[in-house]
């Protein structure tokens, strides 16, 4: 057991996977010699050699396309897209190829690949270093979409992703790399070392997909969220005094419907929160499912708290980011409704 940041936990997951399985290869832009612009693969090339971890040309389509070919050969490639905002050139390879290989070949070929990418805002990265494109993957049959919120989960989920026989989109909330962030951007930065979920077991362990984590049990209202917004929700719960159950979905596809339904059935009130733009975000899917499953248990409409339907701005980051005040207001409104 060691105390790790999310970056260290991700690095450790790579290391464990590469040690256990010779077919795991890691590549992407600047991930080899340098170890990644966020340092998530630092040291791997040195430890495992440049045939196991190497740099790639700046071609997201090429990186994912090559990974698909490698997967078809029998390797387990783990690739990094430098920012989720840059995944679109690879979107065709992901949607038309990786996601459908098993299906269209009736299992003859598969795509056991992991596509990692830093996601979300909070670092003054402007419109091309801040996006949260998860809903563009959850709509695509054949993909799994995973997003950890802490070092412990990051390592366990990443190991599951690498071992998964199907393509996994692995979104890493970059604002959480070095510490939990609750949206109070004007307060001192909190390092992971102060947080219990920075205790990461040595060696191999996995966290199965489709199991949400209840970060805070509560009785009055359910907050469904993931990634950075988990800490925003915890802050909002504390600040509003609402006894909220804060659920971290961890994987969006597959979805832990049971944990979600049980909670909302219990509380009768729900707020959904994500950084991605509101319209057609993953929150819409959650609302659609919940109203269908639990209409008669709902005491108030489900409110979505999300990024506004604009590109992610630079100067007005904190007007854009759905921080604890905005989320808290929605929670209060939900408590007062009905």
């Amino acid at each position, binding site marked *: 057991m060691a105390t790790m940041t999310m970056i260290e936990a991700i690095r450790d997951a790579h290391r464990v996977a590469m040690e256990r399985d010779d*077919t795991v*290869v890691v590549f992407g832009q600047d991930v080899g010699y340098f170890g990644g612009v966020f340092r998530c693969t630092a040291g791997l090339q040195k430890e495992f050699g440049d*045939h196991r971890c190497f740099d790639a*040309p700046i*071609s997201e*389509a*090429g990186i994912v*396309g*090559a*990974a*698909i*070919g*490698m997967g*078809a*050969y*029998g*390797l387990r490639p783990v690739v990094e897209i430098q920012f989720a905002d840059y995944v679109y*050139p690879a979107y*065709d*390879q992901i949607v*038309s*190829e990786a996601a459908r*290989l*098993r*299906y*269209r*070949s*009736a*299992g*003859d*070929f*598969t795509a056991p690949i992991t596509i990692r990418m830093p996601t979300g805002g909070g670092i003054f990265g402007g419109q091309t270093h801040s996006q949260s494109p998860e809903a563009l993957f959850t709509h695509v*049959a*054949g993909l*799994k979409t995973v997003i950890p919120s802490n070092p412990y989960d990051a390592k366990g989920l990443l190991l599951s992703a690498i071992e998964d*026989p*199907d393509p996994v989109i692995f979104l890493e909330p970059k604002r959480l790399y070095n510490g939990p962030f609750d949206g109070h951007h004007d307060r001192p930065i909190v390092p992971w070392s102060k947080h219990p979920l920075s205790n990461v077991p040595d060696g191999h362990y996995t966290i199965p997909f*489709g199991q949400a984590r209840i970060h805070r049990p509560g009785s009055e209202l359910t907050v469904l969220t993931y990634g950075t917004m988990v800490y925003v929700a915890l802050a909002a719960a504390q600040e509003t005094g609402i006894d909220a159950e804060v659920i971290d979905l961890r994987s969006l*596809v*597959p*979805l832990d*419907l049971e944990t979600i339904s049980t909670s909302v059935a219990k509380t009768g009130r729900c707020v959904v929160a994500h950084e991605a733009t509101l319209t057609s975000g993953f929150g819409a899917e959650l609302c659609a499912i919940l109203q269908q499953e639990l209409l008669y248990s709902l005491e108030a409409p489900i409110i979505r708290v999300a990024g506004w339907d604009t590109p992610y701005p630079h100067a007005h980051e904190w007007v854009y980011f759905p921080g604890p005040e905005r989320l808290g207001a929605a929670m209060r409104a939900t408590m007062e409704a009905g």
Partner: protein
Amino acid sequence: MTVEPETTLAPPFAPLQLRIPEPAARPGEAPRFADVALSPAGAVRRPEVDCPENDLLDLAYSLVRVLDDDHQAVGPWAGRLTSDQLVVGINDMLRQRAFDAKMLRAQRQGKTSFYMQALGEEAVACAHARALRPGDMNFPTYRQQGLLIASDYPMVELMNQIFSNSHDPMKGRQLPVMYSSKAHGFFTISGNLGTQFIQAVGWAMASALSGDTKIASGWIGDGATAESDFHAAMVFASTYQAPVILNIVNNQWAISTFQGFARGSSATFAARGHGFGIPAIRVDGNDYLAVSAVSSWAAERARRNLGPTLIEWVTYRAGAHSSSDDPSAYRPKDEVAGWPLGDPVDRLSQHLIATGVWTDDDHTAAVANAAAVVDTAYAAAEANGVLGDGHSTSPSTMFDDVYATTPALLKHQRQQAGY
């Protein structure tokens, strides 16, 4: 301070104009292929496989040909196949041709939704397949059925797929002709153009990373070279020196669009290799012997860890693009008659006759034999059902293979669907 730009050109300037390429001939005009650069048979040298790329540049502009006008095999690329191998080759091509004809008819008769033949291009895939080794992997387009036919993939399986019937290896999921057979070195065909080209490079990289000895062969049409994944493949193959053959099948047309739209102002498609330091070679794709010889050369380069080779196979799409297409709307009806590289089956047959390997009668018998093979397979496949007759796989299989393990929500949907 404003300074006039340094130029010999002074305003007023003539208005600019955009060049919109046009093919040499359109319906109603006489076929014209004067722009297709040819070389005499035997004229193009055969460099050693480890010849440096910058000593090979001419090969992208010439045309490797083995069979001359007298049906003799000539020059440095000749003499590499035995008579037996040539007979195997023509039988492969005849089987493919008979198969295509039969399946096109089946489509017309409503037994399936769609078909794509490769009439006139048989030599490319058939000869290439026999130049690879078991374990090598092709990443084909929809026009390389010859790879499977020449790899002795059971023809009835091809038909089962086309009919989407109860025995369809693809379980009715895929449009006809979208085969897959890992065991036969044939990667699952994508409906999306170009994607397989970089995947082929990735597969080859994996083989090299693993210290294996297998090579990959990627395929793309002239039109699809414009797609982005062509570039990704070139960059990755060039950078990592992957053991891959990169095949461009230039059959002159991309649906209604002639090859000039994808080629642009470069003289040939093979020349694309020059920007990447990838040895490139342009070959008569209707000459079985040339295809075989160059395929072997490129395979040897890859297998010796000498890196990728780009090959432009010059051929002609003698039929319609697909069963949905009617080319008389956009090219001269008799354009194929003007095609300077002839027909690959005829040419090989004439060679066999000219060299005394077989006779006219042998040819007739081989044609009949190919038809019989196809008919036998057809009867067996039809007995497994055709599209729409209710003999498909169970609809419940529609929900399988989305993931290795079907998730709960999808199982629930399957139940909703009644399965």
